[in-house]
């Protein structure tokens, strides 16, 4: 394989397997009828390529200009609805956390000078920096021990005042666990979650957003994956008014591996967003990104941006990212933007796909003409569509729970 010029920015194309010899161009967005788009990235014409890793970073909120909504990281978000989180004073105090005692997992508060803080990443935008500046203590979930184990850490009482928070999840070398972050109740929260995997650790992190209807949640997850370690990261966003969870994973050690899964179901008026970033920064690393979303009801809005950077050190990378959206009713909008930057010619594979399809009247007619009722038809399609993600979660109780949550979503929208 030949060595490509640096950096090569590959424009989004449908179902493309990409080789690093594609010239540097930017695709013009096109729209077809019904507002259904293959790739709707809203950019116009040529945009100079900025390597994702070159983005400005700071843990200090005052280093960022006030948010206008025109910034790359904010341009799809309803920023006017959470100026308290980007510009206001945040409550950074500790809060109620619930979890069952689990062998080889500790959960507790640590001071700002804990050496792990800042080890996995730093904010690229103002809400995250505001949280970082504001938190008093960080919640630390520390995993050790080679036995498989699972813990659910629940936050149910964050209240509706603006809050900043910081969490560290550390998996010691060779440790193994499933950590479920369960978010319910009210919230106006901006937070950073750092996930650090030592050598050969095997960690699954599930972040489950089942907030109350009015909740606003802006989260950045920064993960650093060590040599031969494996991170499975799953974002499930179902409840809340505005939920934006942006996982950013650095494959830091040789042979590191990550699987990033996402599942979201936007109802009327909900804004669910995820900006996923995988940074291949070591040889022979592997990543798989699969996000699936359903949209139903007027004003249901989803955003998925998937950036993959295959850096100069990342020879032998194997990477694939995809996002699929299923539009169930009129009046919704799904943006889906995959980006791939490749700085080395010596990779095993890199590809991406993105598609937004609708469940339309003809599909409904077809299913009904086989005796299936309208409600059952809708459920069949959504369940089938999202189950690909659910089935990969790897925790049977959680899978069952999510399946039930999806059913509840479907029932909820039928009642409206």
């Amino acid at each position, binding site marked *: 394989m030949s060595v490509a010029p640096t950096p090569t920015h590959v424009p989004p194309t449908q179902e493309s397997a990409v080789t690093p010899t594609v010239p540097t161009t930017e695709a013009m967005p096109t729209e077809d009828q019904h507002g259904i788009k293959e790739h709707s990235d809203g950019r116009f014409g040529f945009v100079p390529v900025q390597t994702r890793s070159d983005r400005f970073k700071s843990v200090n909120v005052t280093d960022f200009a006030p948010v206008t909504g025109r910034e790359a990281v904010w341009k799809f978000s309803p920023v006017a609805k959470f100026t308290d989180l980007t510009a206001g004073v945040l409550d950074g105090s500790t809060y109620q956390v619930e979890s069952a005692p689990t062998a080889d997992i500790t959960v507790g508060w640590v001071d700002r000078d804990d050496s792990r803080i800042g080890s996995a990443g730093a904010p690229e935008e103002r809400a995250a920096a505001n949280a970082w500046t504001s938190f008093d203590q960080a919640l630390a979930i520390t995993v050790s021990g080679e036995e498989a184990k699972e813990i659910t850490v629940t936050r149910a009482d964050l209240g509706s005042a603006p809050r900043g928070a910081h969490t560290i999840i550390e998996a010691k070398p060779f440790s193994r666990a499933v950590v479920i972050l369960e978010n319910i109740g009210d919230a106006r929260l901006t937070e950073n979650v750092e996930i650090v995997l030592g050598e050969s650790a095997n960690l699954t992190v599930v972040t489950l957003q089942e907030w109350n209807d009015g909740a606003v949640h802006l989260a950045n997850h920064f993960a650093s994956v060590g040599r031969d370690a494996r991170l499975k990261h799953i974002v499930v966003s179902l409840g809340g008014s505005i939920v934006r969870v942006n996982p950013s994973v650095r494959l830091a050690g040789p042979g590191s591996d990550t699987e990033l899964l996402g599942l979201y179901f936007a109802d009327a008026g909900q804004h669910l967003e995820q900006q996923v970033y995988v940074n291949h920064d070591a040889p022979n690393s592997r990543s798989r990104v699969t996000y699936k979303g359903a949209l139903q009801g007027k004003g249901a809005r989803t955003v998925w941006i998937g950036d993959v950077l295959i850096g100069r050190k990342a020879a032998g990378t194997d990477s694939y990212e995809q996002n699929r959206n*299923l539009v169930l009713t009129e009046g919704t909008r799904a943006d889906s933007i995959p980006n791939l930057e490749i700085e080395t010619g010596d990779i095993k594979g890199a590809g991406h796909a993105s598609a937004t*399809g609708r*469940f339309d*009247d*003809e*599909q409904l*007619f*077809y*299913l*009904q*003409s*086989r*005796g*299936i*009722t*309208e409600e*059952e038809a809708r459920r*069949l*399609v*959504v*369940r*089938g*569509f*999202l*189950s*690909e993600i659910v089935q990969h979660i790897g925790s049977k109780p959680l899978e069952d729970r999510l399946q039930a949550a999806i059913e509840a979503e479907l029932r909820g929208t039928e009642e409206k």
Partner: protein
Amino acid sequence: MSVLEIKDLHVSVETDQGTKQILHGVNLTINEGEIHAIMGPNGSGKSTLAYTIAGHPKYTVDSGSILLDGEEVTTMTVDQRARAGLFLAMQYPVEIPGVTVTNFLRTAKTAIDGVAPPIRTWIKEVRDSMKQLRMDKSFAERNVNEGFSGGEKKRNEILQLELLRPRFAVLDETDSGLDVDALKIVSEGVNRAKENTGLGLLLITHYTRILRYITPDFVHVFVDGRIAEQGGPELADRLEDEGYDRFLTESNVG
């Protein structure tokens, strides 16, 4: 003995240019076990008749009725009609993302029978039917019609016909887009379904070639939204030789 009666059926469709009348008084009676072929030029309203029987929401019944064993069908929902025993093999089967053929068939069978089919016999039944229709096993795990070729979609329709066991089936141009081998396989499937269940068939086609493999009891010539002539199988041969010209007035395009 079941009977499907279509009486003086008038149907219109909403278009951008306003309401358009398509069916102008269709009369047709199909008894269980009979095969009726409907032949007619493009645009004569054959698919409209098929969709109207199935209950597609785009088509409005202005007057007339469709009776299944004396029960009015036109006021039933689409799924009620299917559960009452009607089936439409579509001219253009629809792709259903996220739903596998296996899952779809099981859900449909359960809906139609009112109870889930016994798992072991059902799996075997599905597998046997697929085999006879020369559908590869892998189709079972694919999403319904997604990425299927035209011929594969038609086979999938006949697979459903065999498994769902309706009392009356409308086959809308099931023959179009099939090569000779596929046409034979599909026709065998239809004949098998008829042998096994004794259903009544309304076979819509533009050409006579499928009638070489499925012998109709009656042939109806459909022109400009109504039946212009009826006869036995010999009428099909005549149409093959003469075309539709003698039925067409200047206002019609064949």
